[in-house]
């Protein structure tokens, strides 16, 4: 009889177990028991879930930390460094980010101090006169040649050295080591007198401006431009996109034609033009309206920056508006929107309360990825000389300036380039992480 129970794979039946079952086991189970049976998984809200996934993403979190550090560098840094970004430090021109102590400098000067042949001859003649002799022209020539040879410094390969190479060689010979932080001779002397002087950690430029202060300010401008431009793009794109998507029909057709044309306009060309034109126009405006608060504001921000924002606002919202329009059209078909409309909710309210919250994820990601591209563009324009203008520093224009004398002062390129690249990289990585966290399709 037991053969009636089929032995099939893992569903092994224990005959004894079956025999031991009583009526109690076959009693109906109540609702509570059934409910306890399922091990519930906690339901988490969309944002909590996204945050949990973002936190797990090591790369994105490292990027966030780096961004925070760069932010501190740009916004808190200038308060710590006692030099202004546009402050000329007399006597501290072209400093390297390192220095030699005064004693070392003296030693070096002594070691490389040369005796000119004429002096040697004069000295020899004096000595000879004291002994009552006169030097023959052959002897004079010999002394001259000797002096020349002893003045020449040759390295191990027999190359004759002079200038910077000679200094570097002699420093190595004397065991003089560079110390971090750039100080001018004047500053070193003040330090010797017990004064405290903040070092020029990144050196100074050819006008004696502290390079670190300038890099900090440039970073600050880049970040502000990036975030502000992204917000500008967000606002214009969101408004345009949601109107276009929500209204549909003819409005949509016309609005999308406009988008299409703007889309196919080569942005960089026009941005170059716009930022140039805006710059000139705003400067003119400021000159004509001195004392006007708007003019003062423009003056404060720098006309170039404003020109750049206007250029951004005019051209870069297209992608954002397309994304939002797509989302809105997709969401518009959803039933809860139909329901809201049936209940008599107004168009604006439907957009605000129902549609926007639902495409929030995509908007956040797109905005975040807009920041690095704005920084990219700002540095690009500044590099070409049509972006942020003097005296305001920009990482792009600093890199551009560093091209002259790149071999002597390579770090003038490195400092802004590294900060710029790390900043863009971190924004990109963080944006990627955010997208992974917010995109439910990638839910693991």
């Amino acid at each position: 009889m037991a053969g009636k129970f089929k032995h099939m794979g893992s569903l092994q039946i224990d005959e004894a177990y079956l025999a031991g079952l009583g009526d109690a086991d076959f009693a109906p189970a109540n609702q509570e028991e059934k409910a306890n049976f399922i091990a519930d998984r906690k339901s988490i809200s969309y944002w909590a879930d996204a945050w949990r996934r973002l936190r797990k993403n090591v790369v994105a979190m490292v990027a966030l930390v780096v961004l925070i550090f760069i932010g501190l560098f740009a916004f808190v840094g200038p308060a710590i460094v006692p030099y202004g970004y546009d402050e000329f430090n007399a006597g501290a021109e072209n400093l390297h980010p390192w220095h030699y102590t005064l004693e070392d400098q003296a030693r070096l000067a002594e070691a490389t101090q040369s005796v000119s042949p004429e002096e040697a001859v004069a000295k020899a003649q004096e000595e000879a006169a004291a002994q009552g002799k006169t030097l023959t022209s052959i002897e004079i020539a010999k002394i001259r040649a000797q002096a020349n040879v002893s003045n020449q410094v040759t390295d191990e390969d027999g190359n004759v050295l002079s200038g910077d190479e000679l200094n570097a060689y002699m420093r190595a010979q004397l065991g003089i080591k560079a110390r971090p932080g750039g100080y001018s001779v004047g500053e070193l002397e003040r330090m010797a007198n017990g004064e405290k002087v903040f070092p020029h950690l990144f050196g100074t430029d050819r006008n004696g401006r502290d390079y670190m202060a300038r890099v900090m300010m440039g970073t600050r401008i880049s970040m502000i431009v990036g975030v502000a431009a992204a917000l500008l793009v967000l606002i214009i794109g969101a408004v345009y996109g949601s109107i276009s998507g929500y209204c549909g029909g003819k409005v949509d057709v016309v609005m999308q034609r406009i988008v299409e044309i703007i889309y196919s306009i080569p942005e960089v060309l026009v941005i170059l033009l716009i930022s140039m034109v805006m710059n000139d126009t705003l400067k003119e405006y400021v000159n004509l309206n001195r004392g006007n608060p708007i003019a003062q504001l423009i003056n404060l921000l720098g006309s170039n920056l404003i020109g750049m924002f206007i250029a951004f606002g005019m051209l870069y919202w297209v992608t954002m508006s397309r994304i939002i329009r797509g989302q809105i059209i997709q969401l518009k078909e959803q039933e809860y929107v139909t329901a809201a409309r049936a209940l008599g909710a107004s168009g604006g309210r439907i957009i605000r309360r129902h549609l926007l919250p639902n495409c929030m994820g995509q908007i956040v990601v797109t905005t975040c990825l807009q920041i690095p591209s704005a920084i990219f563009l700002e540095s690009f324009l500044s590099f070409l000389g049509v972006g942020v203008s003097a005296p305001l520093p920009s990482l792009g224009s600093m890199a551009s300036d560093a091209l002259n004398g790149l071999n002597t002062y390579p770090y003038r390129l490195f400092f802004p380039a590294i900060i710029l690249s790390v900043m863009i990289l971190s924004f990109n990585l963080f944006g990627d992480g955010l997208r992974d966290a917010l995109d439910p399709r990638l839910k693991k």
Partner: protein
Amino acid sequence: MDLNKDVQNTGGEQVQPVPGQKLLEVQDLHVSFFTPAGEVKAVGGISYELNYGEVMGIVGESGSGKSVEAYSIIGLLQSPGKVVGGSITFEGQDVLAFSKSEMSSFRGSKVAMIFQNPMTCLNPVYTIGNQLMEALRAHDKSISKEEAAKRAMEMLELVGINNVQKRMKQYPHEFSGGMRQRVMIAMGLICHPKLLIADEPTTALDVTIQAQILELMKDLQKKTHMGIIFITHNLGVVAEICDKVSVMYAGKMVEQGKVDDIFYHPGHPYTLGLLRSMPRVDAEEHERLIPIEGTPVDMLNPPEGCPFAPRCESCMKICLQKMPPYVELGEGHRSACWLRVQEQLKNQKKEGEHNG
């Protein structure tokens, strides 16, 4: 066209399929997905046999492991899916022991598969002819282009496509859904496989087209004596085409049997639920459809006991503690439910009293 003649032509060593002989045997198959959140036991120990010329339906809700089970036969499990236990034997060969290259020559030639959505299953950038001939030439390198084209056209005609000369040069988007499914079937059958796995082949189609495709499959199956595994959640389709049915729930096979047994003497409350939720033309006027309440269990941490218990109206205390064993209800008809175990035990007792 006589397909059997064709079968003999394709290769000397091919065994003529005999209806009633064992073609495929699946024993206690376990498939798991190793996700970051943990192991998901998509298939937890199922067994069945399939003979030549037999059509077996696998029925169940989405997520019950039907497709996963089929994919593991044909070696198409995507990582992180993995067969973790059991065996699959095809014509006496251990399929799970196949090497990569053995597996790819096995696929397509011995076993073919057609998928649910004909709209996305054909590569949009190649012509129908190209994709058909490719299937043929993957397994027979010696066949000439002309010969392959000829075979492909014959195959298209066989599945009821007209104007094949022109159709061969067209792209998938120029075909309707039903036509594409016909192409998929032609592509599956072009190498004369012994087993066809159809993963919800009619779900994405219109009802009228569905009937045509089913008719076509029945027709072809009679001609070729191949075995068919028909995965679906539509019991109407099952009644139409299948000889026997396996009902799956949460990765477990809860009931198995001949079509008639399943339809007229369902042995598991889930099967009963499925039947009751199916609209019937011949139903009494006021009969209502009864849906199965609740949702399937979380496969990430499946409970001890019967997975259907929380949704079962006749759930018992024992159901929540242990998975029931299979009870033989008739020839080839078995079910895993404590209700049946209880009946069986009672019968045993009675018989014991009677005998003693």
